[in-house]
């Protein structure tokens, strides 16, 4: 089933087979350090924009850092937009400052553009827009939609004979959308082991704690019952994140037929003491003085990380 051979109609790729790109050798400590550097960038751009979503951006950034700087192949230079590459879709589109921080660090967005987040005329829209930013594979922001798009890409790339992995991050509040469950049913049917859905389970949504707004438990049981390969991790422990992503790729390469669901337990606002676990920081940007305090805290944490590494 994996390599259905049809005429290669993928406009963006020519060479079939393995996705090129160096395997990144950054250590978990180095990745954590990098994630914290990106936290500074996220807070900076949100403060400039005076609006946006710090809580969910900070909860995702450790996982995104591991993906983009360690696990994903073919996402290091613009010419790879035309070749084989792994793909990432941020279905919880409101966390896009985290993705912008990564794309700027990788050179897909000029660093100088970050200060224009959410400004009229800037390509940095409040939610991801695939027509404006390279490597943004899907336009998202209306929750529940990105996972189906990721599924379509996984199907299409497999038909084209590619061995690309497709990663999709969803939020826990987002799991309340019906379309998520439609896709939860269909991806196992199509045996999409090249599809990895990562749940950023930070426990909060706009109207309150997820378990009060609309309970999701038991999450692991639900996805196992839907025939997904489920891995549960601490979404801020870089060792666990890297191990889970590695296990996922090995399962794909050794012929697993199941899509993967990674339940990542995270903390909203992670890294900033006065934001951590606070739902009021879901969609409010820090003021300049709050930003300074937050940046100081993160820099202290980075100092500590450097000493241990």
């Amino acid at each position, binding site marked *: 089933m994996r390599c259905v051979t049809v005429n290669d*109609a993928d406009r963006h790729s020519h060479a079939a087979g393995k996705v090129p790109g160096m395997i990144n050798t950054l250590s978990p400590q180095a990745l954590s350090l990098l994630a914290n550097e990106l936290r500074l960038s996220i807070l900076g751009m949100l403060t400039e924009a005076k609006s946006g979503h710090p809580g969910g951006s900070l909860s995702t950034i450790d996982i995104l850092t591991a993906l983009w700087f360690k696990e994903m192949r073919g996402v290091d230079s613009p010419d790879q937009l035309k070749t084989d590459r792994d793909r990432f879709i941020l279905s919880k589109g409101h966390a896009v400052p985290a993705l912008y921080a990564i794309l700027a660090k990788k050179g897909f967005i000029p660093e100088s553009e970050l200060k224009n987040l959410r400004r009229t005329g800037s390509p940095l829209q409040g939610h991801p827009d695939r027509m404006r930013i390279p490597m943004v594979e899907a336009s998202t922001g209306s929750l529940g939609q990105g996972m189906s798009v990721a599924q379509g890409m996984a199907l299409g790339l497999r*038909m084209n004979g590619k061995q690309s992995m497709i990663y999709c991050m969803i939020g826990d509040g987002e799991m309340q959308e019906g379309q998520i469950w439609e896709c939860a049913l269909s991806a196992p049917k*199509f045996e999409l082991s090249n599809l990895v859905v990562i749940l950023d389970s930070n426990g909060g949504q706009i109207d309150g704690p997820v378990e009060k707004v609309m309970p999701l438990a038991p999450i692991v049981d639900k996805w196992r019952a839907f025939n997904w390969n489920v891995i549960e991790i601490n979404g801020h422990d870089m060792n666990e994140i890297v191990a889970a992503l590695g296990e996922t790729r090995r399962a794909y390469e050794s012929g697993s037929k199941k899509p993967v669901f990674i339940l990542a337990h995270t903390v909203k606002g992670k890294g900033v003491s006065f934001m951590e676990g606070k739902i009021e920081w879901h969609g409010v940007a820090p003021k300049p003085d709050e930003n300074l305090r937050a940046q100081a805290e993160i820099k202290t944490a980075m100092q500590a990380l450097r000493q241990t590494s």
Partner: protein
Amino acid sequence: MSKATRQAFGESLAKLGEQYPEIVVLDADLSKSTKSEIFAKKFPDRFFEMGIAEANMIGTAAGLSFVGKIPFLCSFGCFLTGRYDTIRLSVSYSNANVRLIGTHAGVGIGDDGHSQMGLEDIALMRALPQMGVFQPMDAMETELLMEYLVKDWKGPAYVRLTRQNLPDLYPAQTPFRPGKLLEVLPSSTPPEVIAIASGAGVGEAVTAAKLLAAQGVSMSVWNAHSLKPFDDEMTVELAQKARLIITVEDHSVIGGLGSCVADALATSFKAQAKLVRFGVQDLFGQSGEPAELYDLYGISGAAIARRVTEVLPQLK
């Protein structure tokens, strides 16, 4: 000869599948009704049965298009366009190169009643930037439109098709001019009335024209296969040639062909003609015999002719 446009679609899709390996087809448990099963049987590896889950089908098709496929996704028009937010973001805003195929257009499906009738699908799709909106009038035009959509169209498009058979009306040896109005029934004398019709409405307009001719009223009939882009220019030109323009469609007049023509006339400084819109008038559909329903909703040839003869004296 007459054929349902869904049937012509299914046959044409299976034929195009030979030449275009990038075509893939998705259906939501209605492949027997939408006629995508013809493709499914011929190319099982390129057909995806998505089950009764339209939103997921729409998003999946968008993803397939982003890696170079040309997906056709099929369901009843009302079920497909009912997943509006998914079409709005994952398809329209994303400029996904997908073809949304909505069958079972209008009250013309008859017995199954309102819940299965596409009655505001054109209105919904027209409101989305980048979305092309098309409705062929017969089998030949469906085939020509399908070729155009595979060879030349880029970006998202919605195609509205009928359950019921429609008469062959496409003039022989006539090239397909995308986006343009096409005269299908000229009047023998300069027309007092010009009908602009779409889909199943074209056949009813032709019937009306014949009934009116017998009463000494000349009416020509034009077909609009493209609701977006819409041929404003020719519409305004026609409105300078006759005293009365009528529109005929099996769809709500709100946002459908009636609105396309009203918009064109109202924003033109040249158009003189008055407008009467035949279609479903801000009403729900219901079960019944298609012919009876067309009478009831005032869109049968006879009902149109009757109403035109009532209106014309008021314009003198």
